[in-house]
């Protein structure tokens, strides 16, 4: 049959065989590659759940322990620092540039705090992750002077009209414009607690992202609306670490930002006097401001969630493993027994 066509041809003088189309054998084409075929045997299930349990419970305990060791002082001051006469009209107070914004409060250290102690400010209900806000920045402009005029992304804080010429704002955009500008001065036993504000920003940001040749320009000139802090025009952006920290917009509406570090230790029951400048307007939208002093561990800040979650998952796994063992002991199903196949069971009934 195979070469019938040829034998039919002229006098079978030519004997060219048709090329066989038979598939070439290889383990790949026959889908017989060596393979690992795991099956979910009860043994595997119990072993893996137990493994998770035995991994998670120590991690959970460890994290919880680390979190418990972190000492944290959170002090909300936005209401306390509001003078009596402005209680009803906080916005007027904060907008009044003549009003005295200085506010002195005392906070007590509950436990011994070892250096480095981080000083944060915390804002609540401030949507730094709002799309209008996140997008309003000029990354190229921050990096080099050459892109100073690239302010398209920065609306509505892109340019100012200076003697009828539109001139770019450096740094432009809503984020920079709304720079946080409360300041804290701490004193402990009549001695100034030095807050080190160097090195609070990421190294990658100060070195590459913010230009060392870019100086602030036309910043915060608007008289109708002042968003936040001003910048010293003599200092390049790469050294304006408060700005750099602020520009890393927060992921959640409640967030902390690093203000500085204290390198001396604080003893329990120490009373720290905070002299703060209450400049930043969170009153107009009902936001809150807090001052936070915190030590640190490998787990960063004080956060019990990770530890508790690990313990819970580990606990559930342990519980399930025990259940599986009991089930396996009391109601085992022989694996791969053909008599359990549906049609065989039907036939058996």
């Amino acid at each position, binding site marked *: 049959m195979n070469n019938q066509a040829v034998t039919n041809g002229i006098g079978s003088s030519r004997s060219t065989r048709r090329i066989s189309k038979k598939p070439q054998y290889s383990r790949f084409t026959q889908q017989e590659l060596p393979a690992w075929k795991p099956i979910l045997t009860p043994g595997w299930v119990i072993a893996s759940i137990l493994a998770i349990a035995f991994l998670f419970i120590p991690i959970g305990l460890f994290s919880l322990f680390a979190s418990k060791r972190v000492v944290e002082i959170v002090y909300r001051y936005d209401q306390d620092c509001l003078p009596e006469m402005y209680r009803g009209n906080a916005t007027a107070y904060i907008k009044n540039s003549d009003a005295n914004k200085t506010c002195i409060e005392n906070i007590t250290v509950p436990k011994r705090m070892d250096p480095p102690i981080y000083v944060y400010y915390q804002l609540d209900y401030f949507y730094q992750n709002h799309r209008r806000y996140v997008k309003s920045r000029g990354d190229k402009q921050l990096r080099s002077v050459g892109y100073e005029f690239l302010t398209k992304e920065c609306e509505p804080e892109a340019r100012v009209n200076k003697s009828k010429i539109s001139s770019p704002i450096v740094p432009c955009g809503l984020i920079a414009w709304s720079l946080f500008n409360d300041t804290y001065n701490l004193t402990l036993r009549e001695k100034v607690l030095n807050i080190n504000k160097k090195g609070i920003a990421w190294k990658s940001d100060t070195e590459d992202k913010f230009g060392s040749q870019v100086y602030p320009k036309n910043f915060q000139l608007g008289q109708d609306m002042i968003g936040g802090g001003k910048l010293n025009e003599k200092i390049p952006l790469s050294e304006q670490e408060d700005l750099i920290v602020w520009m890393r917009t927060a992921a959640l509406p409640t967030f902390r930002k690093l203000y500085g570090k204290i390198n001396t230790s604080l003893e329990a029951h120490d009373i720290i006097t905070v002299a703060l400048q209450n400049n930043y307007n969170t009153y*107009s939208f009902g936001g809150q401001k807090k001052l936070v002093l915190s030590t640190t561990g490998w787990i960063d*800040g004080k956060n019990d969630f990770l530890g508790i979650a690990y313990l819970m998952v580990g606990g559930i796994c342990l519980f399930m493993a025990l259940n599986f063992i009991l089930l396996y002991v009391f109601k085992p199903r022989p694996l*791969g027994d053909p008599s359990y196949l549906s049609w065989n069971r039907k036939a058996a009934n």
Partner: protein
Amino acid sequence: MQLNNHNTHNGPASHNSRLVYINNPQRTNEEYEFTGNKITTSKYTIFSFLPKNLFIQFHRVAYVYFLVIAALNQLPPLAVFGRTVSLFPLLFVLTVTAIKDGYEDWRRHRSDRNENNKESPVFQIGKFRPKRWKDIQVGEVVKVCADEAIPCDMVLLGTSDPSGVAYIQTMNLDGESNLKTRYARQETCFMPFDGDLISGVIRCEQPNRNIYEFTATMEMNAQKMSLSQSNIILRGCQVKNTEWVVGVVVYAGQETKAMLNSAVSPSKRSKLEQQMNKETIWLSVFLFVLCLVVAIGMCLWLIRHEQQIDTLPYYRKSYSIKGKFPGKPYKYYGIPMETFFAFLSSIIVFQIMIPISLYITMELVRLGQSYFMIEDKHMYDSSTNSRFQCRSLNINEDLGQIRYVFSDKTGTLTENKMEFRKASVFGKNYCNSSMVACATQDNAEITEPAKGKNPKSDVIVDPGLMGLLHKEIDGDERIAAHEFFLTLAACNTVIPINNQTNSIETELHQDLDYQGESPDEQALVAAARAYGYILFERTSGHIALDVNGKKLRLDVLGLHEFDSVRKRMSVVIRFPDNNVKVLVKGADTSILTILRKGHDNDNITLATHHHLTEYSSLGLRTLVLAAKDLTNEELEKWQLMYEDATTSLADRSLKLRETALFVESNLRLLGATGIEDKLQEGVPETIECLRQAGVKVWVLTGDKQETAISIALSCKLLTPDMHQIIINGTSESECKTLLPEAKTEILTVDGSVALIIDGNSLVYILERDLESELFELATSCSVVLCCRVAPLQKAGIVDLIKSRTDDMTLAIGDGANDVSMIQMADVGVGICGQEGRQAVMASDFAMGQFRFLRRLLLVHGHWNYQRMGYLVLYNFYRNAVFVFMLFWYILCAAFSTTSALTDWSSVFYSVIYTSLPTIIVGILDKDLSHKTLLKYPKLYEAGHRHESYNSFLFWIMMADTIWQSLVLFCVPRFVYKESTIDIWSMGSLWTVAVVILVNIHLAMDVQRWVVYTHASIWGSVALTFACVVVLDSIPVFPNYGTIYELAKQPTYWLSILLIIVAALLPRFITKSLHRMFWASDIQIAREAEILRKKRLFYGPWKWR
């Protein structure tokens, strides 16, 4: 036999016929420019490529969706992503598809160019000069030499053979490997072709697709003659065995029959995909709800903060007074518009909820699956040298859910290799019981090598019949026997081909090979040869026989071909002694009614009839032979009628039929033959296996009831203990009563019931409103056998099931008469057999043997279905979990459609980060080995129960998705509560976590880990990290440097670990419990398979 699609072209009236002036292309093309011989199968030119390709691509809804989303994103208030980023997905798919299309088209261009630049000698200015194929015009005279391809459709004028015969191979056209004869008209074949002017007019029908029909007339030298299919040679064929042929071009280029036939079969949609579309609608509902929540949230938020939004540092409704547009609103259009924009922009953010990429993924996966089906060595047929073919790439997974198989009989269940088994001559039965080879005979033509080469001549000779033939010629019985074999040898269209061209000794026809269009005829001629009636020459005018050493030249006066109405064929033959006889052969019903009446005859008729029923009960195909002598008057009258009929253009076939009816009457019965149609290898096993797998096999055949039943018995479709219900209605009312009777009969019978129904009854049932009754009856029977059904009825029966149930149907056949059925069924399978390629061309899958069906359905069908079902669910999950994760975050970003992920990561997620593993798993994953699947055919029922994909699984999966997305969102949300985390760190954490999560989710479900699976899954995770690192290393992005800082913190890694374990734990536990208590058949079989192997290695196994 062949399906005639274009009956309308049968009788071209003068107004729609084509006039071809022979050797005068100028005049031919004067009135109307006929298409030249240039062919273009390519779709595009360099200039039209871009617009045309884009136009075709945008016909797909998916791409339009991408386009709309990309366009929405360009509107300033909606710009969620950057410009380039938002266009990326669209450009990506467009480019990939365009490159694929472009490459395919370039290959077509190349082959077109090769084809168009071939050269053939064309008669120009008194001589044959070479001309390129693309320049050949209608009306020109072309010469084609031996073994050359024919450049266009031509009417033969002359050949190297003085009798005007040409042999062609039509392999490329219909796949038949045997040679066909074509004739030049006697009037033209003696014309000299050198220098002389040839002129004449051919009037032929308009170009059409029917390769089995051609009607035309030729006028030459005031002589009018008719032309038919036997006078035309078609493009794509090859000239064989003939030194040269000369012909006049009638159809060229795109209008040739070969080109008109190159249409593709209609595309089908798989059932899984249809079901999937339902769930896609649910996903759109989800999308709508999510967007609505965001929009309403935005609206409420704006109303609550309406007084503040102007001063809110993070909203800032208007430009500053010193700015560009002092005091004007900045991207703020009032609350209703902002709400609306929030809705639209959330559509952009959530766009991948509708898994458009899934359609592209599915296509790629099917391509890979097809590759493995084609390469399967178990589905290679060495006898026809054919691999499995996937002609349709849309319905691989349907193979795993087939409930009904509709099978043709001849050529599908049987081999269509006929063997002459029994003869009834003059009322006497001769069965070749003794296994005596014919080599003992005088004209021992079969030598050992020849036997091997030509199995058809392997005829076992009955000594009794042989003895009869060697008696002196006297007596009715002896004459009948003589005429019996004369009819076998003469009344056919078989062509003897002498392979030893140089041997002039016709005494020993050693190397005769019979080529014919019907295998039955070949078997009959071979049988005649074995009995000493050797057909060794055939031209259009005469045939030459060698009867026991004496040469006999018979003039063929006329030949009435077989047609489906008469069901017989006849030749009118003039013997050397001037006697004229009509020799007829045909189906029993068609001949027994036109026999001469008479007492003597009746006895023979009765005996023959008895033999016929016996033969068909043995499963043999029967033919009845008859003859009659023509008187002079009859001959003259017939000649007139025949002349008129053959030269007429209009109604030729009708006139020919009338002529045939005139001579085919008052016949003398000679006898009957029984031919065995051998069963194909492995048919009973396959049918038994399919039955166990819960697949119902119905046989639809054109054969007689008895034959059909006997074949059904021999292939174990029917078993002797089955109760048979036979419905043979001859009228509507009879059918009306038969059906309910049958139904009540079923109720009384216990055990399985077989329904046997014939085509006649089906005519009444399918046309009237009895359809539903038949449906109920047929579905309650375990086997259905339909005999004597016409091609369209086959499709009707398939439709009966298809339109009334959700069950999947598969039709399998090999002949042109199965085409309609193959196209109607959900899955059409063609057998590349002996009956041409039409069934294959119309099919979705094609293979060499019926028995491959078992492997195709039980193994590949099962795998494909499992893989595809999981693929769809997983892709839904993969996209939904991402969208929900974004959604939860938007709820804590004042509904402002912020995404914490960088633009590029959002876009890469479904295109780069997670796409490859699903494709690899969809192609390579395998739950059970083929051995297990074949061992337990019942495992196939998993597909019937929709075990891999159903609404329940979809909703479970959605619930799981929401849980996983909540874990994804909440863990970082609470771990980084009141911390310094910035939006890009959070996004980076989410990107990495979601990619690892979905990949491990997939890894949990992979059943067979090969190298490629490992590489793609872990590679994707690594690639994601790499991409994140690269994206965080570009200083102009706001996310610059994020991952470097983040990776230093243990919290980051602990969060990822927590997310993955907490998200997958419920799934893992449910899965384990399910395995323990409600293990599915597939899982048990899988355990058995793997543990058995392990036990072989590690000895007896306790528990693991």
